[in-house]
């Protein structure tokens, strides 16, 4: 009703309206123009699946997990409704609240915190998930009358070797993944959604990621993780026919208890600290052996270029060319009944630790159809045998069920509550 200064309006209509990746005419654009276009990009909040999964991975992340603090089911639903409305506005480049950061009654705190004024949508996606604690508390009590709809697969992840979990950086009843090509836009989203949550949900932990470590589209270059290696070369890509249906999206028949989750997915998050300084002292040849790829090109050690398949039968001298403990071999779908993940992780650096070492690593995010077949066995194999584990310490861990996309007039996760 009230006229307002919309973030997009400031930009002048035409620019901001540029929808999705279709406008991507790479090659003809200068780098600057391409970067500008990325910032103008916006993704629809509503659709068959939630955005932020198959969406081409943006450069920045703010991820937050929440404890639900209300015990009233109606309040939980009202929170999801409020979050839906705010997320739809923000992903379109608008403000969190209905009024805006500077348009409201001066006697009231603004209903948007304002730091995204003048910034465009920046490809923002906001993806919501439900943790096991939303259904049953640690004593097994049914919190909101949802216990009989808790999917079999939605349990706290088992303890894995080398897990050194910090409870304050793990678990959660709800999660929000905010990804954007401008870090301030991602932080603005989480900050405002957290504010909307006060009294109904409280932030349990949150994580910033400053650079994507996976490509989810063949239109994207493969980025590097903080080991200095290309990461996510073999990741599941949006363009692969049928792959998402087979490995990412939950089907209605997967689990009778979880029928509401059809079209959704499971999100695994793992905060993997790297012992950066120790890693940096490893000879190049060893680093490449641990990973199973060359550091420059990212090609498998059995030859070819980045996207060539590794040859696990190849032998150099008397040993396999792809070492038995190399990361690529340990996690390859060939050794896990073909199971693949859609990885969507980010590099993080949270300053330095008390001894001056980088507090840094990979905030691993994967979307899978079933964590029991598509994550847990692979993580176990990695924890037991992977050469990289010497340089990793997992400090955070969580599993969430990510409901399907939000239809017109619906709120996120509505199928669970009706």
């Amino acid at each position, binding site marked *: 009703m009230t006229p*307002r200064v919309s973030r997009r309006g400031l930009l002048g209509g035409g620019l901001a309206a540029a929808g999705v990746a279709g406008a991507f005419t790479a090659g003809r654009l200068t780098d600057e123009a391409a970067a500008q276009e990325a910032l103008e990009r916006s993704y629809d909040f509503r659709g068959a699946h939630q955005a932020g999964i198959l969406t081409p991975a943006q450069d920045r992340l703010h991820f937050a997990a929440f404890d639900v603090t209300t015990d009233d089911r109606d309040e939980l639903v009202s929170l999801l409704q409020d979050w839906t409305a705010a997320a739809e506005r923000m992903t379109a480049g608008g403000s969190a609240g209905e009024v805006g950061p500077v348009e*409201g009654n001066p006697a009231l705190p603004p209903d948007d915190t304002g730091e995204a004024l003048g910034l465009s949508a920046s490809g923002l996606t906001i993806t919501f998930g439900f943790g096991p604690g939303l259904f049953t508390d640690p004593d097994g009590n049914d919190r909101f009358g949802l216990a009989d709809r808790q999917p079999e697969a939605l349990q706290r992840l088992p303890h894995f070797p080398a897990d050194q979990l910090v409870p304050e950086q793990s678990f959660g009843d709800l999660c929000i993944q905010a990804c954007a090509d401008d870090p301030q836009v991602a932080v603005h989203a989480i900050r405002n959604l957290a504010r909307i949550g*006060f009294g109904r949900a409280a932030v349990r932990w949150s994580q910033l990621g400053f650079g994507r470590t996976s490509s989810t589209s063949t239109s994207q270059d493969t980025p590097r993780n903080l080991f200095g290696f290309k990461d996510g070369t073999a990741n599941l890509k949006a363009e692969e026919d049928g792959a998402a249906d087979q490995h990412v999206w939950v089907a209605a028949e997967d689990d009778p208890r979880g029928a509401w989750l059809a079209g959704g997915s499971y999100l695994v998050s793992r905060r993997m600290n790297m012992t950066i300084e120790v890693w940096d002292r490893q000879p190049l040849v060893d680093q490449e052996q641990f990973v199973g790829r060359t550091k420059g090109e990212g090609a498998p050690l059995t030859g070819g270029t980045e996207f060539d398949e590794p040859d696990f039968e190849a032998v150099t001298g008397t040993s396999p060319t792809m070492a038995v403990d190399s990361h690529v071999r340990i996690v390859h779908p060939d050794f896990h009944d073909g199971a693949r993940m859609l990885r969507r992780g980010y590099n993080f650096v949270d300053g330095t630790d008390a001894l001056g070492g980088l507090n840094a690593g990979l905030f691993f995010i994967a979307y899978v159809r079933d964590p029991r077949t598509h994550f847990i066995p692979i993580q176990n194999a990695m924890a037991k045998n992977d050469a990289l584990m010497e340089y990793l310490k997992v400090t955070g861990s969580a599993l969430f069920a990510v409901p399907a996309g939000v239809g017109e007039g619906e709120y996120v996760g509505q199928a669970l509550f009706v």
Partner: protein
Amino acid sequence: MRTTLLAAALLTVPVLTACTSNTTSEEGGSADASRDFTVNASDDACEVSAGEAPAGTLSFDVTNTGSQVTEFYLLADDGLRIVGEVENIGPDVNRKLTVNAPAGEYFTACKPGMVGEGLRSGFTVTESDDAPELTASDQELVDQALTNYAGYVKDQTAQLLAKTQEFVELYKAGDSDDEARALYPDARTHWERTETVAESFGDLDPEMDLREADLEPGQEWTGWHRIEKDLWPAEAQKYQSLTPEERAFFADDLLANTEELNSRVQDLEYTIDDIANGSRGLLEEVAVGKVTGEEEFWSHTDLWDFQANVDGARVAFDGVKPIVEQNDPDLADTLTERFDELQVLLDAQRAGDGFVLYTDLSQDEIKAFSDSVNALSEPLSMLTAAVVA
């Protein structure tokens, strides 16, 4: 590119603000345009679009057309008491003052350069039968709230004075430190309940309630926390206990300041938004100092202060609650509920006549307090607007 965007934003805001004002009026902000004014504040003039209004919620849309930063005031007929003000209006900036004004004579004033007594004009508010936001009974509610709150502050300060007298005698005696330690958090309760009022005296507050960490280099440290450290020296590094003469100095200084505080609050007058802002301010004190265990660094009696801040915030809220119930019943319900939920957490930590020490709380318990304070503070930030609406 960014510069252009910001420039566009600045140019756009005043226009849209004007639209907002109109919309608000239509939605019931004021009954008609006779309560909405524009003010053209230049360097040498303060042109208000009219000089008369019916009683009710008045709205002044102030635009600074001059070159200096300015302020706009609505002053009572004595020319001293501020009824409403907007400060720091930069050149080309537009701000709005919304204020409840009963019938009477007033002055409007612009203060270009923010100095001097400003460019004043008379302004008359006439009796009105249709004052939409402030009916006669609303005015009674406001008067009642103001009277009650003034009484509460005086009563708490009187109790603070009495217990401070007792406390400093025990402390000076030198052989009654256990009794002094027992009385310390109890006496401070009366300070913390009205902390925002005490803090409004910029000279007394630092002399009475400064924490060691807040000192500037070379600044003398006096007041409650100076004595606290001397009574609880166990955690202090290489601490030199105060001599009897030093004890007497700090004790007498605290008592003298408390007597001064007590005399000053006798004639203190409040506005309704003072009370609402005070409620919010006390919860902010909790959020920044008590939940974190910083306030009582040596005694760890933070939960006494926590409870006292909440007491004061609750009294202030209850005082204005009848007004909020008329203007925004949902907000009144939410605040009542959230105050109750926070009180449940506090009650769970009671021990004897007081509370457990902050250092005995688990991290989970502290997080739960913090969540509950956030849950209350967020709607509490809407209180003032609901009271003066």
